[in-house]
């Protein structure tokens, strides 16, 4: 399943990026060969020798709309700088200019590092004192989505690694505490306490197995909105379940159940992030969230149980194919038939 979803995400990214880019090319969305007409107002007396001249740029909204066939309209004036180079004079918009589409995209694609829209300027005729009509040709823009897609892949790969590494401290803290809890017998006491509730959900886990205690801690941390603690507890629970797994790389039924419960995320205290976004509004929503999370938990448990009974899931169950091991199985369900 995950194989298909994963491949689907990647392949459809390519297909859609191609589709949008070809559409942009055929429509010439960025008018790659047509320069943008505008009026340049000089703030000081124009010095032909100066390397940099600050100017004010005015773009006629109607001409702009006609050229790019868009409803977006530019602002009345933009601050910009004229820069003399060996290849002619360049017009560079200031970095904080709020540009309309498609100029904003042209800026992002052609000059993402400095965030300044830049193009080669050609002066036409003066229309008044210190006012000159001109046209600006930007770098041609092609394959925007393809670029964005490749860029996103690199960015997210980096993000993924930094997310994982940022977990190190919290993981170490809670795994350390759990080790103490294990040796002090807290986990064992917890297992006895929660066994009647968790046993029906995890029939394959032996009665006194510490996995049940870890699962209980994981669920408790979720309920109290302690996402930071819930993850290490959940990981530890997975590791305990893995000790019962005859295979290395295939999920067992209890693992799927634990995962389903976690994706349904039983929480009575809303996540801190939502609190930050919504403020005190959250008080109104608490009831709605509890109902929703409760129903989705029931659905998750039912789905995990029922999907586990499908012939395909039964065939891939590690406890079935590798059922020869001498292990204590919790229920008849886990025994080979």
């Amino acid at each position, binding site marked *: 399943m995950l194989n298909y979803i994963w491949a689907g995400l990647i392949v459809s990214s390519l297909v859609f990026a191609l589709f949008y880019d070809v559409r942009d090319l055929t429509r010439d969305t960025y008018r790659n060969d047509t320069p943008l007409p505008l009026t340049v107002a000089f703030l000081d007396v124009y010095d032909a020798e100066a390397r940099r001249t600050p100017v004010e740029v005015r773009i006629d909204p109607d001409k702009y709309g006609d050229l790019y066939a868009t409803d977006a309209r530019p602002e009345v004036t933009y601050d910009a700088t004229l820069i003399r180079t060996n290849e002619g004079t360049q017009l560079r918009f200031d970095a904080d200019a709020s540009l309309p589409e498609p100029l904003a995209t042209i800026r992002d694609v052609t000059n993402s590092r400095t965030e300044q829209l830049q193009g080669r300027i050609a002066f036409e005729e003066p229309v008044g004192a210190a006012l000159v009509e001109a046209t600006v040709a930007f770098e041609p823009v092609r394959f925007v989505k393809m670029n964005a897609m490749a860029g996103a892949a690199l960015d997210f790969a980096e993000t993924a690694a930094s997310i994982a590494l940022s977990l190190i401290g919290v993981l170490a803290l809670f795994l350390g505490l759990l080790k103490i809890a294990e040796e002090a017998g807290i986990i064992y006491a917890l297992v006895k306490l929660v066994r009647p509730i968790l046993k029906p959900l995890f029939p394959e886990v032996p009665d006194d197995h510490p996995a049940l205690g870890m699962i209980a801690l994981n669920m408790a941390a979720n309920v109290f909105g302690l996402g930071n603690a819930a993850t290490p507890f959940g990981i530890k629970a997975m590791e305990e379940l893995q000790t019962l797994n005859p295979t290395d*790389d295939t999920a067992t039924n209890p693992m799927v159940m634990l995962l389903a419960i976690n994706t349904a995320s039983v*929480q009575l205290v809303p996540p801190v992030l939502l609190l930050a976004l919504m403020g005190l509004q959250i008080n109104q929503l608490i009831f709605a969230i509890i109902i929703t999370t409760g129903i989705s938990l029931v659905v998750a448990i039912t789905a995990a149980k029922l999907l586990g009974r499908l012939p395909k899931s039964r065939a891939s169950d590690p406890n079935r194919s590798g059922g020869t091991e001498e292990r204590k199985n919790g229920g008849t369900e886990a025994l080979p038939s």
Partner: protein
Amino acid sequence: METLREIISLLSYFVLPLILVGFPLYGLYKKVPVYESFVEGAKEGFEVAVRIIPYLVAILFAIGMFRASGAMDFLTDALRPVLALIGFPAEVLPMAIVRPLTGSGSAGIVVDMINTFGEDSLFVKMAATMFGSTETTFYVIAVYFGAVNIKKTRHAVPAGLIADFAAMLVAVWVVRLLFA
């Protein structure tokens, strides 16, 4: 309801300190070499984090590409008429699709919707309820299964997605019932 929330949030202040102080304290009482045990257990933190990396990279880069290529927008547009049939408002659809894929992305959508519709709108309440009552399914799969090197996830993904789907529908329904 207000008092219940008060009690729960009050409790949640004490759960973490209880674990942080209570576990070592009880360990001391049970004559466990607490410092040694802690360090022994904590050693695993680094290994686990490193073990997760390949799984998280695999999931996140694919999702990142999917969003950047415009495929996600297309999916939203394509599903709109279908979901309108069952009374699911198109305005909260982006939230329902993004939520299982990325946590930060869905938080961004909540912010967007607050700016567009205002804090008091039903749509924002629906989106916030969705955000508060579900988890980022693919992230949870990558982290939890990655930590124990599980590659064949069997029916975990469908089960998680079915639960998400139910949560989205219930969120719309509950918010309508309570606030409309």
